[in-house]
């Protein structure tokens, strides 16, 4: 009984405390770099990082990512088109977790409200940024075994020189 009264009194006293509310539009909060906001596609050394592996699309719980893979003549794979329907996105960050190349990243930007829902559909041009985003230095094709333009077989990290049918014997 007394505790209830005490409780009432303590709550009543809170009337004279400082407000903790951040008055958002006038007052901007600090957002950590790992904040899960607007999704971007990053580049490394000027090249698109995305290899169109479809893992982000399949990880997406609301199925709001769709893309089509294609290849250039050197065998480097990249998305022909890449679409995120932000009107469905729940910013869970699974796509970023699934991405094997650090291509898709969530950024500390959430101010993307639109009056027309259609404007929330972002295409590859809207998503691509110039730099590597949060994760610099990782270039998937350096460690992948595949040969692409500018990197032949055996030129990746920790790779022995390539063999073929003629050079097999030790």
């Amino acid at each position, binding site marked *: 009984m007394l505790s209830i009264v005490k409780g009432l009194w303590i709550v009543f006293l809170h009337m004279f405390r400082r407000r903790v509310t951040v008055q958002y539009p006038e007052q901007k909060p600090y957002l950590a770099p790992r904040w899960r906001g607007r999704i971007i596609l990053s580049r490394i050394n000027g090249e698109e990082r995305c290899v169109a592996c479809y893992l982000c699309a399949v990880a997406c719980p609301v199925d709001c990512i769709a893309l089509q893979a294609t290849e250039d003549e050197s065998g480097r794979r990249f998305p022909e088109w890449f679409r995120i329907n932000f*009107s469905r996105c729940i910013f869970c960050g699974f796509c970023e977790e699934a991405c094997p190349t650090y291509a898709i990243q969530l950024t500390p930007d959430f101010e993307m409200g639109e009056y027309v829902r259609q404007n929330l559909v972002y295409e590859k041009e809207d998503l691509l940024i110039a730099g590597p985003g949060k994760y610099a230095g990782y270039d998937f094709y350096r460690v992948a075994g595949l040969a692409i333009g500018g990197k032949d077989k055996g030129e990746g990290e920790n790779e022995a020189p390539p063999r073929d049918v003629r050079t097999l014997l030790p």
Partner: protein
Amino acid sequence: MAKIIVNEREYEVRDGQNMLQAALSVGLDLPYFCWHPAMGSIGACRQCAVRLFRDANDTRGKLAMACMTPANDGTRISIDDAEARDFRASVIEWLMASHPHDCPVCDEGGECHLQDMTVMTGHNYRRYSGRKRTFRNQDLGPLVNHEMNRCIQCYRCVRFYRDYADGRDFDVFGIRNQVYYGRQFDGVLESEFSGNLVEICPTGVFTDKTLKGHYTRKWDLQTAPSVCVHCGVGCNTIPGERYGALRRIYNRYNGEVNGYFICDRGRFGYEFVNGARRLHHARVRTERGAEAAPADSDEALRLAATLLGKAKRVIGIGSPRASLEANFALRTLVGEGNFYAGVSEKEWRLARLALDIMQGSPAKAASLADVARADAALVRGEDVTQTAPMLALALRQSVRQAPLRKAAKLRIPDWDAAGVRNAVQEEKGPLYIASTFGTRLDDAAKRTYRAPPDDIARLGFAVAHALDASSPPVPVLPANARPLVGEIVDALTGAEEPVVLSGGCGSEAVLRAAANVAMALCRKGHPARLCLTAPECNSTGLALLGGEGLEPAFGAVTSGEADAVIILENDLYRRAGAAAVDAFLEEVGSVVVIDHTDGETAARAGVVLPAATFAESDGVFVNNEGRAQRFYSVMTPRGDVRESWRWLRDLALAAGRADVEAWATVEDVDRALAAAMPIFAPLPEIAPPAGFRIAGQRIARQPGRYSGRTAITANVSVHETPPPEDTDSPLVFSMEGYQGQPPSALIPRFWAPGWNSVQALNKFQEEIGGPLRGGDPGRRLVEPAEDAAADYFADVPRHGEPSAGNYLFVPAHHIFGSEELSALAPGIARLAPRPYAGLSPDDARGASLAEANEVEVSVGGWSGRLPVRIIDTLPPGMVALPVGFAGRGPLELPAWGELRNPRDGRGQAQ
């Protein structure tokens, strides 16, 4: 039955299996790589290690490979054993040591057996940090992609390519950790079954190159059970669709038909569906000679109905590549008497004859599985590798049946692939091939016989006469055929399950002779099976529908009786001479064409209605053994495309016909067909009805992990549309539906939890390598008559000597190029040979012609210049012309014709 004990639990399994097979059969999970149900075990990958105990008292046991351990009564193993588990995990770890870090860009990813097995064994962290070995890739042609780095040295590819499919140009090279699977030189894989490497390879070394152009993961493919349309065998397939385009074809296991494999034509021929020549909108020509203009479907239908309404008599030309339903709808619309099969006169006669033989002969029709099980085979007529490739693969297996018995005598189980090979060495079972010239199957044959079709027939009649003296005798037999007769008779009578296979090669006599051989065998107490090839996917179905061939149809028009024609999914220029078709189309007045692909016939039509391909429609095809198989639409069509039968129904409705008012779904058409013709009575029962539900759900065409459904069409409208309705089948164009195992006829894909690769198939079979759960789909409509008292065919052809300067032109079929639809796929088109005139070396010398020289050919009312190709196996006096190539009218071969070297101007050269 044998009682085995796995993890302290007892299971009943069929005798004669190995423990891996047995464990998988009872639903246990055990990782493996080198073992394949169709190719047996070699114990190479060490992945299926289990602890094997001597008996119930043995507590220590020893590690053993499950795939090399016979599942005898009382065999006791432990899969869960800690040491076995560690062993398996370390095997994977070793395999993964050099495996490249490129799953994201690997086409196998998401359906990779190596991924599945790695997860299954629990290996998840790479400890090896040394250098990885790398390999250069080879260019293996337009169909199969090579990425050697990913190889885990399981030997499955060579075992399939060399041991199963008898390919010669692919092998394994190297030593120690540098083992290379490939060809001696870069180049197109020669085997017609090379596409199966894509499914055989447990990782991404061999992938589908056609898929690479529009790559989609397995989890994103909308799939449905389908049937291959590229030959008469009717292999079951799983086409996959994404973003409105067909992306690839995978094999759909059917124990009675194609089993684990399909041919390259079936696998890679699908791209015609997405092709530039697809018709998506109706086209009308309001006046003769006017330019055809696109029209909306209502307008086109109205115009078509007016054209047909004005006509005195409307005839319909059906098609062997259209479904039963479409052909029946046409037959209903124009009436039975006005329905003509859209095939050349000769082909129609052959198809009808084949049907009569199947119904009248005491020999049962052989399925592909029957052929593979046969221990003696006689092949007559054409090169089955080119016309019905999977039959050839089955025959290659039949050759191994007789030697297997020898291995069995040595107590080597049939799954012990290496043991069997050691025991039988190069020995082959009896396979006799009689053909006009060399076939791709000759290397598997015990003896071959090359002669003109009539002589092939005469050999057959002679064999039949030798088997049963009451069959008609053959007066004079060529010298080289005489010793063969006795040998064939011995082989066939010595076999337990002989099979006689005949592909007409354009000659009725050959078919009749084959029928006589099979009948004679049956009469003499050898239950032979008979296998007759059919040229197209629904040739047999069309023959069952009856009617007349193309010539009477032309006749009806020339006589002035008919003045309007509906042509169903058929390019007449591939069926008859250009002049005849030109005249026919000129004379007929009103032409309505319903087809999915633009062609010369469609170009001349008054109204063209865009039809659905196999991938967009539901229906039934009847394959060469008379098996009715249902296929389901994989995707909804673009534009104004409708299924042919729906166009025909709408035309009938426009004409005020009341009998088609009830045709709302394809099942209504099936029921009408079943009611109209008793032979089709089982049709409504060959697959579950459209109302079929499992736990109240339809069967999902999209996998549970299908991605992007709220983004795919978001660029058009952010508002999502409901999935398309499907009234024709119990499947649904959505991921929201039943994802487990449906009845076998409805299996949209092979997937099971933990098994993302095609190996998930193990979970769908009653036992490994056996039928699918609930029985293999499809129902045979044609069975031999109970009172098989039919007489032997008596008309033995005479031996024809070529008259001077005359050559016998015979058809040369090509797996790539001879078939109309697959030839439209870019990959296949690249492999298709250019038109040629094949000459025997003697004839070429005689006419002083060399390879690639031009030669003037005149046969069957057609003449033109073709480059020479010298065919060593071609008997003199014969010329081989490839079938179905553009730039050359269709010919009724074999036929007599003339050949001239244009350079010497001496006229005929012989």
